[in-house]
């Protein structure tokens, strides 16, 4: 019974691991922290798994646990890198793509997103993942109206970071 649960969980996580990697690349700046956070999220997912009833999609449920771990539980390592080092996979942009203005702009955008606070990052993350406002509001525990208000503020913040 337990073996079966383990197997089911690991298989589902293996198939959906992208979600966790994306959260990690948003909330950490180097590979070690990325792996640490991935592990912590995995532990929290596994601990919560027996209560997962399957009435929601496994991936939807994962977003919640992964973001909650990043926002509330995870303590950044002491050797936190203040400057952006672009070591995390998703933010790495190959140098040969540099000349392209669009790539350049994207790099700036990713950089700006990285400078946001934990909650703002969560909003941007859910937005990038194509979640609607009702899911964003449910995940964070705020009303839909407030989620929209907050999102607008985040957009303004990004604008200020990009055009100081």
């Amino acid at each position: 019974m337990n073996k079966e649960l383990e197997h089911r969980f690991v298989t589902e996580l293996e198939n959906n691991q992208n979600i966790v990697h994306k959260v990690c690349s948003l909330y950490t700046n180097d590979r070690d922290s990325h792996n640490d956070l991935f592990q912590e999220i995995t532990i929290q997912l596994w601990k919560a798994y027996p209560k997962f009833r399957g009435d929601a999609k496994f991936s939807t449920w994962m977003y919640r646990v992964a973001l909650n771990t990043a926002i509330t539980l995870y303590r950044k390592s002491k050797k936190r890198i203040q400057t952006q080092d672009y070591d995390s996979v998703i933010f790495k942009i190959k140098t040969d793509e540099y000349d392209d203005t669009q790539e350049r702009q994207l790099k700036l955008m990713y950089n700006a997103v990285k400078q946001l606070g934990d909650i703002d990052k969560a909003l941007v993350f859910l937005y990038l993942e194509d979640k609607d406002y009702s899911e964003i509001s449910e995940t964070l525990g705020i009303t839909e109206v407030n989620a929209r208000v907050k999102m607008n503020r985040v957009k303004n913040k990004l604008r200020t970071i990009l055009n100081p």
Partner: protein
Amino acid sequence: MVDELELLKKDWQKKEAHLPKLSYDDIYKMIWKKSSSIVKWIFYISIIEFVFWAGINIIFSDPESMQELKAMHIYNAMMVLNFVNYGVILYFIYQFYTNYKKISFTDSSKKLMKTILDVKKTVTHYVWFNLIIFTITMVISIYGVLIYGQEGKQIVEAALQDSNEVTFWVMVAIVSIIFTAVLLLLIWLFYKLLYGILLKRLKENYNELKKLEV
């Protein structure tokens, strides 16, 4: 700006191909690793606190101390205090346990953060309660020693020869108050630091979400 975010969204989804890929075995190994989350730390700190204060109570309840208390005529007062103390400690343990059980990562972020802060609040209340009990015990003990204790009587007599009674008791009161205040301040600072380190980020994030509702 909206367009730029849209652009980012498209790129974001394209990037999935470049993400690391962990194997079944990698993930399987991870589920048996120990969590390093702050909730676990709060849990350990709380257990240490419950044990520490219960230990202090037990150390001061040995038969020898009890005899001394009887000699000093403060035995009854101390017994009542102890009785109240144990009752309240049991209540706190129950409260702590039920709050701790409520922590669920499948709740919304805001609710989850509130539950974690509630657990911390229970522990803080427990510590303050113990400090109050501790202070009352100190005051009763000082009183008992000075009025009924052998050495206490000598101290009082010696003091009364040098100055008048009122000045002496005022001095006793002032010294007690300063001593207690310094002690409380140190403990308060210790907790401020401890939970400050552990919960600073969580508190900031929680307040950010809460601020929206106003």
